[in-house]
């Protein structure tokens, strides 16, 4: 062998992937879900099992006998009783078999299942591994859940507390500690092997001792201390009482990435962490491109039947920002404001942040300028404004950042704004990119104070984007406050591919505002619409009078951004109307109202202007076949509402929602939608 080949062999062998037990567990769990899902949809008949060793003849006979029966319900009903007793005798001595070892190489199913490998869930802190992957008949499962009562009711109490808190103080911040989640894994449809019934028998007897809140799985052991900003879901409004609905647009996406990271980590996100509009707006939609001579964005309105309620309709509003003219964009002045406090010191924070900014750096121009400010204990300028062409210098400063100390967020912000103001020149766009886990524990730590500071600074013309990293003490409320009031966007970055999406693919949108303070106001026609409800946008609600008040701040649209808002509307006379008509209310039916469900008004300011412009669109009273983009948006709205356990969904379930999303996936060039569908499946199995 040549020496070069030897050298290559040695080097290649030395190149080993790092161990990442969490990621491994996540991938294996995903694959198991896939497997279970495949069993549900598997087309019969299954391949007949052929023993390859001399298995015990009696068992083979019994198995074959049950295999040949196709009627699953009958099978459960009859075999659970008959075989349960046998199984008890057979299984007890086998429970503690080591991994992958069996008495007979190919023992029949019932016995094997008892000998579940101990480290089936290696890497997780689960003690009841035998419980996990075996599908259990529904009937048995209920019993099992009942026996798990202690853990479950604990959790229910928590949830109720949470709901009460949220209801009592809609502005308040809810802290969620996702411990004691009941982890009922075995819920998929039984796959028709006789052993399942026996397994559940054992489950029933074991579950009481197994489920111990202290030792059972804690999906995100470091997830405590996270706070979220959300309000109670928008209630149903009666058109005759409140015909006008006003809100600010929102192009943030942080909530979706957060929800994804929670679900992939094996737990459902707290309802307070789910902001449906951010989930919907995470996805690029292919809305018509705007006619730049009229407005920097296009507005598309459609009405179609609600997927989850045949007696209501969805009003879908799609806004498409003009695509950026990349070639002659104005130069950018960027100040990276990087949190280097001690809490940033984990792989998914500072290191990921550095990688993310490297990605961003690659897509900048020589005429762009960059400065870096860090804060930890005290704030400091690490890199004076430097042209993006001096890549080495910038990368070098980035590389030398390290985490330590507490977080002086306020001082850092002040310094970043000051620096950004010195960098401003004609027709350049200034923006601060704040990267943090949101833990501002020195200086301003009150979101209200921080809000007024950022509000005051907003007028200097510098935008503020917030990138959230890591979990543990992620302060979502803080990030929201900053981005919403700093004329900017907030995104949550949990993986390098998310960084790719946020920083590079959509960097033009995030960095070039094309319209500021975009507000939406819809007036509903009481002659045709009885009730309505805005799905999401709870944190973005505006007062009716704020719409025409240019002093009131609202969201911005960046180049190429799409924004989607969905109302569920109930037509007059629909059986779905929830509120009875009032006996004493004066109701005037005007004969000359046009045939419109409502009237859509949009206000926006062009960048640098202080006076807003108005766009109006009547909403014709016609239902259409929804387009693919609108249907997918509806599916994401459905997903978000399922996660928040919305009471307006009736018996709509995740399976139906998955079917809806699947049917409207479209080209999905970047795979974002496929990923969302995968998340729905995963969430469905976590319930």
């Amino acid at each position: 062998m040549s020496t070069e080949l030897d050298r290559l062999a040695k080097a290649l062998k030395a190149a080993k992937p790092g161990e990442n037990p969490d990621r491994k567990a996540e991938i294996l769990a995903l694959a198991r879900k896939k497997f279970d899902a495949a069993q549900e949809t598997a087309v019969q008949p299954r391949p007949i099992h052929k023993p390859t060793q001399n298995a015990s003849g009696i068992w083979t006979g019994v198995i074959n006998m049950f295999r040949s029966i196709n009627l699953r319900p009958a099978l459960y009903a009859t075999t659970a009783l008959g075989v349960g007793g046998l199984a008890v005798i057979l299984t007890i001595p086998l429970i503690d078999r080591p991994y992958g070892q069996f008495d007979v190489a190919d023992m029949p199913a019932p016995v094997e299942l008892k000998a579940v490998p101990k480290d089936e869930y290696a890497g997780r802190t689960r003690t009841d591994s035998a419980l996990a992957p075996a599908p259990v008949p529904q009937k048995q499962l209920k019993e099992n859940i009942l026996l798990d009562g202690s853990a479950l009711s604990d959790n229910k109490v928590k949830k109720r507390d949470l709901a009460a808190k949220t209801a009592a103080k809609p502005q308040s911040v809810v802290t969620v500690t996702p411990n004691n989640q009941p982890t009922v894994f075995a819920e998929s449809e039984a796959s028709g092997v006789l052993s399942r019934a026996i397994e559940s028998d054992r489950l029933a007897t074991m579950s009481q001792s197994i489920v111990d809140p202290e030792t059972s799985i804690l999906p995100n052991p470091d997830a405590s201390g996270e706070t979220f900003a959300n309000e109670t879901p928008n209630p149903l409004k009666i058109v005759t009482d409140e015909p006008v609905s006003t809100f600010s647009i929102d192009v943030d996406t942080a909530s979706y990435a957060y929800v994804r990271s929670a679900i992939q980590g094996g737990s459902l996100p707290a309802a307070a962490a789910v902001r449906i509009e951010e989930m919907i707006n995470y996805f690029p939609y292919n809305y018509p491109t705007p006619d730049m001579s009229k407005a920097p964005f296009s507005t598309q309105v459609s009405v179609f039947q609600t997927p989850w309620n045949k007696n209501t309709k969805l009003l879908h509003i799609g806004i498409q920002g003009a695509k950026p003219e990349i070639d002659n964009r104005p130069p950018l002045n960027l100040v990276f404001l990087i949190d280097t406090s001690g809490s940033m010191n984990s792989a998914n924070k500072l290191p990921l942040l550095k990688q993310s900014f490297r990605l961003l750096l690659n897509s900048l121009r020589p005429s762009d300028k960059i400065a870096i400010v860090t804060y930890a204990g005290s704030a400091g300028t690490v890199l004076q404004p430097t042209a993006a062409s001096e890549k080495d210098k910038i990368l070098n400063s980035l590389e030398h950042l390290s985490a330590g100390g507490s977080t002086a967020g306020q001082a850092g912000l002040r310094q970043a704004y000051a620096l950004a103001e010195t960098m401003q020149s004609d027709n350049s766009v200034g923006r601060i990119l704040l990267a943090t886990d949101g833990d501002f524990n020195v200086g301003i730590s009150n979101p209200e104070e921080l809000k007024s500071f950022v509000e005051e600074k907003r007028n200097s013309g510098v935008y503020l984007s917030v990138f959230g990293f890591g979990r543990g003490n992620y302060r979502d409320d803080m990030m929201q406050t900053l981005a919403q009031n700093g004329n900017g966007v907030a995104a949550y970055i949990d993986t390098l591919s998310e960084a790719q999406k946020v920083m590079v693919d959509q960097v033009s949108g995030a960095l070039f505002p094309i319209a500021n303070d975009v507000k939406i106001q819809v007036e509903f026609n009481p002659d045709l619409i009885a009730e309505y409800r805005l799905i999401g946008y709870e944190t973005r609600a505006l007062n009716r009078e704020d719409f025409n008040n240019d002093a009131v701040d609202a969201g911005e649209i960046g180049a190429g951004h799409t924004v989607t808002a969905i109302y569920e509307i109930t037509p007059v006379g629909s059986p779905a109307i929830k509120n009875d008509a009032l006996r004493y209310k004066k109701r005037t039916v005007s004969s000359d109202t046009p045939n419109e469900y409502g009237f859509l008004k949009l206000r926006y300011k062009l960048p640098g202007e202080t006076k807003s412009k108005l766009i109006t669109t009547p909403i014709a009273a016609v239902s259409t076949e929804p387009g693919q983009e609108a249907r997918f948006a509806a599916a994401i709205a459905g997903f978000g509402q399922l996660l928040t356990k919305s009471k307006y969904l009736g018996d709509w379930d995740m399976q139906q929602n998955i079917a809806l999303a699947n049917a409207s996936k479209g080209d999905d060039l970047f795979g974002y939608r496929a990923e969302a569908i995968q998340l729905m499946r995963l969430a469905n199995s976590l319930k």
Partner: protein
Amino acid sequence: MRMERSDEILVNRAQAGDAVAFGQLLERHYDMILRLGYRMLGSQSLAEELAQDVCCALPKKLGSFRGDAKFTTWLYRVTINAAKDILRKQKSRETAQQGWGDMFEMQQHDASEKAQDRAWLAQAMNSLPTDLHETLILTLTEDMSHAQAADVLGVPTGTISWRVSEAKKHLRALAQAEEAYP
């Protein structure tokens, strides 16, 4: 009598819908998938992406496994094909980092011998065409015979031998270039 159940038995079971058997198969082969992916793609995150792709596709793919080849041979083939898919995808995304290129850049600043070894490796891997690349990984690090590698890659054994000698030439040329411009 205790014995480890063979892959083939587990596959058989998994095809019949046995989730436990499927789980065991995954546990048993995950490390191989990740390792192979890492050496093909040169990046941890891409290797994990690959592992996820392969593991999640397995439930479906298993249906097409007929037992004509050894399960591991088949799984190697599935993994390598999936890795090539990722490489293709990477290439079509202009802004994306190329796996080994990324690593090369990361290691350059580090002067330690190990880091330099890896930088050299990244450079070598980058300069090798994909078919030589996968051939070398199978023969050098998975200790396969040329016949076994041929089986996995679905080419004649002679092709593997030819590729190995091509790779030698290639590496020698690289070494000479290195001497000429250190």
